[in-house]
């Protein structure tokens, strides 16, 4: 029961492992960025889950409510989401440049063109 009650953490782990797997396995650079995004999203869900207080409502002062969820992790993760967007943007910008230089976004083809490493 407790294991099922913590199902969002299971989802966090599922997404985290999926994301890492995609980053490691795919040779397509865009797919790598997608994997990285899934990986980061899992951490966003982790933080949002931390803020949940059992029986708590949204943290808005109102009569009749005594228990509130913790808003701080949500605020923190807004920052991390912005960072994630910036990383994705920079990653995609690099891919555009790589495509212009190598005419491919596939890692294997790129390394074939540069045999020295």
């Amino acid at each position, binding site marked *: 029961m407790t294991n099922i009650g913590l199902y969002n953490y299971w989802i966090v782990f599922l997404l985290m492992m999926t994301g890492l797997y995609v*980053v490691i396995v795919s040779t397509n650079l865009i797919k790598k960025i997608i994997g990285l995004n899934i*990986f980061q999203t899992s*951490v966003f869900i*982790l933080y949002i889950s*931390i803020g949940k207080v059992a029986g708590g409502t949204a943290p808005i002062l109102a009569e009749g409510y005594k228990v509130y969820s913790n808003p701080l992790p949500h605020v923190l993760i807004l*920052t991390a989401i912005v*960072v994630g967007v910036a990383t994705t943007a*920079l*990653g995609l910008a*690099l891919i555009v440049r790589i495509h212009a230089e190598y005419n491919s976004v596939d890692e294997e083809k790129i390394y074939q063109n540069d045999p020295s490493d």
Partner: protein
Amino acid sequence: MISTHLPVLQVAIPLLAAPACVVFRQATVTWLLALSVSCISLLISISLLWQAFTTGEIRYELGGWAAPWGIEYKVDVVNAFVLVIVSGMSSVVLVYARESLQHELGIRRIHLVYTGWLLCLTGLLGITVTGDAFNVFVFLEISSLSSYLLIGLGPDRRALTAAFQYLVMGTIGATFILIGIGLLYMMTGTLNMTDLSQRIPAVSHTTTIHAAFAFLALGIALKAAVFPLHYWLPNAYTYAPSAVTAFMAASATKVSIYLLLRFFFDIFSESFSLRTMRLNEILLITGVIAIFSMSLVAIYQQDIKRMLAYSSVAQVGYMVIGIGLASATGIMAAILHLFNHALMKGALFMALGCIFYRLKSLELNDLAGIGRTMPWTTAAFVVGGLSLIGVPLTVGFVSKWYLILATLERGWWWLAVLIVASSLLAVVYIWRVVEVAYFKPAQDTEVNEAPMSMLIPTWALIAANVYFGVNAQQTIRFAGRAAAELLGLP
């Protein structure tokens, strides 16, 4: 009055100057702006170090919000020392960067390079100065994102793939750190480093804290290029513009090593990190493998910039061994080596930049005879190389000396022997360059010495290598005090 705000000005000035570079656009103006901002940061960090050394820890509440609610900046000797390293190296390399960057990248849109540089400086200084765990992540990403940009600008197209590789690895590392901080917050309800260190002992037996420890250790080790998580480093250093490599090699990994010290000796207590989690054993083993395997790999490189990049991973190994020894002397040796390695690698990469400026190549075979055509640059490389090996009268000797003292304190003769033996490998890869540069006939006798604006900063760092190698008392005092503070000794 303004002196009470020094900790935040340290970060705020470069952060504000970065967009100003975009506005001004003009190459010389933005370079002057970046250089003066960097020098101001250096002055601030020196005064902070002196203040922390004489009067003790400085605490600064950002926006006047008291500590657990607001972000707190906390400066003690440990991070003030790292601040001086980062801002000092940035200033010296910026003097050099103007000619080097314009030659390698062209003058068009060069202001964006300085913007990236200042943002990277902001991030590195911010990581160091902050006393808030989440703030560390934010600044880490500021410095990382700008360094991906700076590396990707390199003159060779392989710089793009190197930057992409670093982006993927760096993001995984930073996200691991984010997970670790989240798990710590989950168990303690605080992000302030002082509060964390007080509250962790009560919950340190839980799996959540153990997992947080593991995530943080992996994430920070990835950013610090601790063997075997160094995969991104050789490519990134090889293909980045010369000035950027010199700056990164002298500052970025140093800040990550500082984070390692801060998290595992200050936030997690020393006894938890070392006795419960046995971090020191892992660090010792990976450190010893690093100094041997990476020095061996360096010997077989044809590109000497890549050779020095592998040597950097090996040098991180020495720092990690010092931390792994887990004694006051060991940690002092690690902190000393942070400073000393910044001096020697900064100087060496700058010398390589001078060579690249004239030869357009850093392949070993193309370097034939440059000892005669570029005598000053080659001499700088040789002195830097001697320092890297650890010859007496250079800074390399000072850090190796204390590292060996620390191993002998533990009675580990074998480790002392291994450290000396690995230094001999450094002799081999530096000698390969010396041999080609001095004992082979020059292919192109038309090659001139690099311009003065590049040679002078290079030689300034070489002089620092010798100066701090002879007059090591002051750095040893700072490093000793920093180690004592980390271990909670009086």
